[in-house]
C-alpha cells in the first residue's frame, strides 16, 4: 500500500514492495531501498541500509497521523497524508492551516498582563499580551494590523498550549 508522507516541506510516496520478516524492500519516491528494520512499539527504529546503521525515534503528536522524528543528528516534523487527511486539508480544517489572525500560546503558562482590550486598534508587531512560563516572560505581538475582536483570557489566568488568547480582525 503506497502512502504519502510529508517530511518538513518535502512530500514523498512510500510503498512496501517485499517483506521477509525484518527485511523489507521499499520504494521511496521511485528510489528502491532494501532495509533491515526492527522497531519497538514505543517508536524506536533500528534500520540498517547498505550497511549504514540508522536510529530513528518517532514521537507521536497529539494528532494521530503526526509525528516528530528524531535521528541522531536531526529532528523532522512528519505527517501521514492519507485520504482522510487530504479531505481535511481540502476543507482547510486540518489544523495545519492555522489562523494567522489570532495570538495563541505556544505552550502552557500564566498570563502576566493583557495589554489590549476588545475594540482596540492594534498594529502588526505591537505587544498585545505578556505570558510567563518557567520564570521567563514573553511578549506576544499582533500578527496583523486590525481591531481586537475578542480577548479570551485575563491577568493571572493559567493557559494551555495552543490556546487562542486574543482574536484580531
Amino acid at each position, binding site marked *: 500500500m503506497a*502512502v504519502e*508522507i510529508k*517530511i518538513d516541506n518535502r512530500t*514523498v510516496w*512510500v510503498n*512496501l514492495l*517485499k517483506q*521477509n*520478516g*525484518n*527485511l*523489507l*524492500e*521499499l520504494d*521511496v*519516491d521511485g528510489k528502491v531501498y*532494501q*532495509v533491515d*528494520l*526492527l*522497531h*519497538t*512499539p*514505543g*517508536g*524506536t*527504529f*533500528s*534500520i540498517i*541500509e547498505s550497511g549504514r546503521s*540508522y536510529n*530513528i*525515534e*518517532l*514521537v507521536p503528536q497529539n494528532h494521530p*497521523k503526526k509525528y*516528530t*522524528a*528524531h*535521528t*541522531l*543528528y*536531526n*529532528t523532522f516534523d*512528519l505527517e*501521514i497524508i*492519507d485520504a482522510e487527511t487530504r479531505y481535511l486539508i481540502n476543507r482547510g480544517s486540518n489544523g495545519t492551516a492555522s489562523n494567522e489572525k489570532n495570538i495563541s500560546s*505556544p*505552550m*502552557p*503558562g500564566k498570563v502576566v498582563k493583557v495589554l489590549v482590550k476588545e475594540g482596540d486598534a492594534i498594529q502588526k508587531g505591537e505587544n498585545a499580551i505578556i505570558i*510567563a*512560563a*518557567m*520564570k*521567563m*516572560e*514573553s511578549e506576544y505581538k499582533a500578527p496583523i494590523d486590525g481591531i481586537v475582536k475578542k480577548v479570551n483570557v485575563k491577568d493571572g489566568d*493559567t493557559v494551555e*498550549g495552543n490556546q487562542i488568547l486574543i482574536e484580531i480582525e
Partner: protein
Amino acid sequence: MNHIKKILIANRGEIAIRIMRTCREMDISSVAVFSEADRTSQHVRYADEAYYIGKAPSGDSYLNIEKIIEVAKNCNADAIHPGYGFLSENAKFARRCNEEGIIFIGPSPEVIDQMGDKIKARETMIKAGIPVVPGTEGSINSEEEALNAIKEIGLPVMIKASAGGGGKGMRLVHTKEDIVSAVRAARSEAKSAFGDDSVYIEKYITSPHHIEFQILGDQHGNAVHLFERECSVQRRHQKMIEETPSPLMTPELRSEMGRAAVDAAKAVNYTGAGTIEFLVDDDLNYYFLEMNTRLQVEHPITERVTGVDLVKQQIKTAEGHPLEIQQEKLFQRGHAIECRIYAEDPDNNFMPSAGKIYKITEPLGLGVRTDGYVYEGYEIPIYYDPMISKLIVWGANRDEAIRRVRRALYEYKITGVKTSIKFLERIMNTPDFIDGKYDTHFIEKNKELLLAKDPCDNCNDMVAIAAYIDYLSKINRVQEVNQGFAPAQSRWKKVPYINHF
C-alpha cells in the same frame, strides 16, 4: 562540633538530588519538600522522607519560610541545605534557621545580607580594595533615577536585581527609550524570583568575559579558592556553557584573581561554599561583579578538575570542621565543560518548552557525568526553571574535552519537549568556541552558524520509511505489549533474525 544526621533540602529538581547523593554517601538522612506540582518529581522519590509544603507557585511552597521551618522541626532535621535559587540567598531564612536551632548550610545571615545584596557587596569590595564595575551607589527607586544614572555612567548599562543571581532580573539597555520597560521587566522578574524588586544599574563592559572563582571558607577563619570557571557562553544573560580552566586565563592572572577572591571571602569571614564573579575585559582587567553566597549551578566542573566534592565540604564546614583542604595542594587536572540542558526551543528565541518527556537516553562512558531530575513520562511543570539537566564532561585537555562533549551530546536524547541539546552541539562545532576566543557576545555573534540546520544525507528517506511502517502497524491494529524490538508487524521471538531475502 555538630554532627549532622538529617538534612532537609529546601529545593527541588537536579540540585535537590545532587545534594541528597552526597548526604547518602555521608550516611546522612535526606528530607525532601515538595509543592503540589512536584509530587511526581524525582527528588521526592530519591529522599528518605518527603513532605508536602504548598501550592505550585514557589511563593506558596519553596519560598514559604515558616512552612519549611515547621517541616524541618517536625521531622527533626539537624540542618537545612537551600541549594541554589529559592531561599539560598535569603538572610531572613538563614536567621530563622539559626533561631530554631537548625544549622543553615551556608554563610551567616549577616554575610548573606552584606554580599547577597549586590549594592552592599559592591561597597564591601571597594573597601577591600578589589576593583568593581562603575555603577549606581544604591538601588533605583524611580524612572527618573534610572534616567539620571544613565546620564552619569553612559550607555550601554546593565540593570540588575539587587537580590539577584543566575541571570534573573537582568536587562541590558542600549538606548534611552528602552530603560523604562527594562526596569519594569527586571523588577517583575526579580520580584517573582527573589521576592525583592529592587534593582541597580552598572556600566556595561563591552566584550566582557564572565569568570568566577569558587571559594570555600570554614568557621575558623580559613579560606581557599578552587580556581576559576569561565561562564561567558550565555543566552538571555543566563549561562549555557561553563568550562575550567578558562581559555582566557594565564597562570599569573589566575593566582592574582584567586588571591583577590580569598581576600574577599576573608574580609567577610565567609563560611561554606561561595563564588566571586568577575568581569574580565580583553586586556585582562578584572572587576568584581557579585558574590554568590551559595552553591553554583556549575559547581560540578570545579569538582571534576579539583577532585573535591563541594557539597561534602559545605556540610563539613557547617558542622564546624576546619577545612582539610590546603591551597597549595589544590590543582586543576585536565579540563571540564558543563552544558546546561534547558527545556527550550533555541530556534524560537529560547522559548521555554514545558510538556511531557517521552524518552531519555543518557550519555555514559569515560569522562561523562549528568546531573538531572527528569524521567520518561515526567511532565515538566510550568512554574519553575526550564533547566532539566546538566552534562559535565572531562578531558585530559581542552581539545579532548570538546570532542567528548560532542560525543556525549550525540548520545544524549530527550524527546517529547524541545531542548537545547542540538544547539549545544553546534556551539561545540563553532570555530570561535573551539579556539577559545569568545566573550559573552558569543551566541549573538555566531547566530548564523548556531541556527543552521544540520545536513543529513538520505536519513530523510529512512525517516519516511519508519513513519510508514508505524502507520501500517497502526492501521493493522498490531497491539504490542512487548517492550523489545520486533520486525515490522511480527514479533521478534517468533521470527528469527533473517539475514537475506
